[in-house]
């Protein structure tokens, strides 16, 4: 990005049904990784490959990645005044259906789906009748991300610091939502700075990202170790 190399060595394999956590200190490249996978045009991939459903992910436009089943929960969801949540979701759902060769959803079916999915994250009716994220609190924005995830039923969800800025109640609601959506056919990558979220969303594998490299991979106990010792021992270990 802008001639700066951010990600240098990532080797990651996520299978259906798995939850992976990626942890790392600030500036280690966590958010860049999620942005690159989702197709944010601000970043250029100079080397490497990413395969999703057997397809070359990096060659695809962001919308096609989404239609293939990739979902990114943004660390900072964008406010879009004038675009209503309902219209936004209706368009998104129908574009997914079109990609799958399905007819657009009827208004009745869509509204029923909207009501059902709102339950997942206990989202307020008011929020879905407003413009996308406009005037939402931090917690509402994150709930809204998980609500969208529920609507689009992705195969792979990347949750980019979904816990940042959330109080404990909102964190619990968001995590519960993610857990409810989990099944044997989808997978989740949880990106976080802190271990706390992983008390609620229990990972199968934990990776530590530092300075653009995955420097350590382990089970969920690795997260606890990090929480106890902080990131300094990783930084020290990498220097050696």
């Amino acid at each position, binding site marked *: 990005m802008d001639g700066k190399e951010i990600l240098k060595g990532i080797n990651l394999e996520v299978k259906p049904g798995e939850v992976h956590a990626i942890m790392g200190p600030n500036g280690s490249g966590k958010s860049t990784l999620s942005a690159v996978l*989702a*197709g*944010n*045009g*601000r970043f250029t991939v100079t080397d490497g490959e990413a395969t999703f459903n057997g397809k070359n992910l990096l060659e695809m*436009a*962001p*919308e096609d*990645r*989404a*239609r293939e089943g990739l*979902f*990114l929960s*943004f660390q900072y*969801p*964008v406010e*879009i*005044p*004038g*675009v209503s949540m309902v*219209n*936004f979701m209706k*368009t*998104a759902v129908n*574009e*997914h259906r079109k*990609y799958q060769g399905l007819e657009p959803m009827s208004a009745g079916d869509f509204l029923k789906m909207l009501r059902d999915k709102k339950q997942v994250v206990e989202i307020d009716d008011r929020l879905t009748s407003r*413009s*996308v994220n406009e005037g939402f609190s931090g917690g509402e924005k994150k709930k809204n991300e998980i609500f*969208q995830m529920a609507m*689009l039923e992705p195969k792979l969800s990347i949750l980019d610091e979904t816990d940042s800025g959330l109080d404990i109640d909102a964190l619990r609601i968001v995590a519960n939502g993610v857990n409810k959506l989990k099944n044997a056919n989808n997978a989740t990558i949880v990106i976080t700075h802190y271990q706390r979220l992983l008390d609620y969303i229990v990972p199968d594998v934990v990776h530590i990202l530092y300075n653009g490299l995955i420097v350590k991979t382990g089970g969920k106990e690795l997260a606890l170790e990090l929480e106890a010792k902080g990131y300094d021992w990783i930084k020290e270990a990498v220097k050696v």
Partner: protein
Amino acid sequence: MSESIDSNTMKYKLINLYQQNRASILEGLPENMNRYRDAAIRDFDRMGIPEKGEEKYKYTDLMWAFGKTYGYAFKAHTINVDSSTLFQCAVPDLDTHTLILENGWFYERNNEHAALPKEIVACSIREASVTHAELFAKHYNQQAQEHPESVSVFNTAFAQDGMFLYIPDGFVMGKPIQIINLLRGNNPLLVNQRNLIVAGKNSQAKVIVCDHTLSHQNFLSNTVTEVFVDEQAVFDYYNIQNQHNQSSQVASLYIYQKKGSNTLTNTLTLHGGFVRNNVFVKLAEEHAEAHVYGLSLIDGKQHVDNYTFIDHAVPNCLSNEMYKNILDDDATGAFNGRILVRKDAQKTRAYQSNKNICLTPTARFFTKPQLEIYADDVKCSHGATVGQINEEAQFYLQSRGIGGREARMMLMYAFAYEVIRNIRVPVLVERYGELVERRLRGELSRCEGCFVHCN
């Protein structure tokens, strides 16, 4: 039409035209319309056609519009076709009282079916100058005279016809009045349409003005509309500009507001090669409120320039102004928003916002807020931006599976919607939304709704 002529030469040609035709210009019209003409042509001589770069025309070359050769009509033609059979409005299902003017002339025959309430006076300005002589004399040319503009004095000198509308005291219009201005003919034509609207005390009315062309000739419509809004009246003026892209339109709208009155103006520019809108609002008595909105969606080589002047002459008034433009291809545009808060106009609230999106590197927009505040206890704000589509927002939409083109469309629509949502006719909000969406998708033809199919 490839002559190259400087504005000074053009001015003399036009003055000469006046002198040669003075008798026919004055013929059949009463003194209370004619008495301003000679002074107006002298003012025109003094002011000339402003050149590009002058204060109020910094980015707009009026010669694009005035430098061409046009025909003039100093007499009403006998019409042989009912205009309403030629044209159907592109704003469907709008329940309005519809009036049609052709080439600036109000023909009785076109307007027999408007079914206006009997209290309302809606007629040709020629007729009103005689039948409502007192009312006419009291308001005609009063505001235009206060702000002598080259294009307005030119209109005053030549004006032959236009629309007169009177809403009596206390009368509340149920349905909006729609005025459709059609330009058509086999030859280039310059039309100096002159309108006068008087909204009586405590009255309420909404007027929708649609400007269209029905044939491919070069047209220049140089319109002056004066609106007098009496105490406590509520008046809305929506203008949809959709002339063809070789035509030029200069529209000067003057609004004078009495105590406690409330106005809303909204200018929507869809098509038209050269468009200059002047909006003058004078908040002449306390507790008056003016909402001034504008939206243009232009492409190709279109040029749109909005000039507004809000005069806070007395304390305790509110003005709220929002203009937005989306420019594609090589389109250019300008906004100049002058707000004057006079010395004693304390407790004034005046807000102005101008936001613009240039979709291509060759589209250009120039914006100039101009606030002159001579009172010390006021709330005034202004903001102006020129930018592109928000890439972060576009990526956000795309990341949910919405295609790039569709995502841009949604964002442009959302940008425009901020202006549209202020419309005070609920059904018109929807219709505007549809028009804007079709315009953004390139689906709205300027000839839509026309039965002539001249192309």
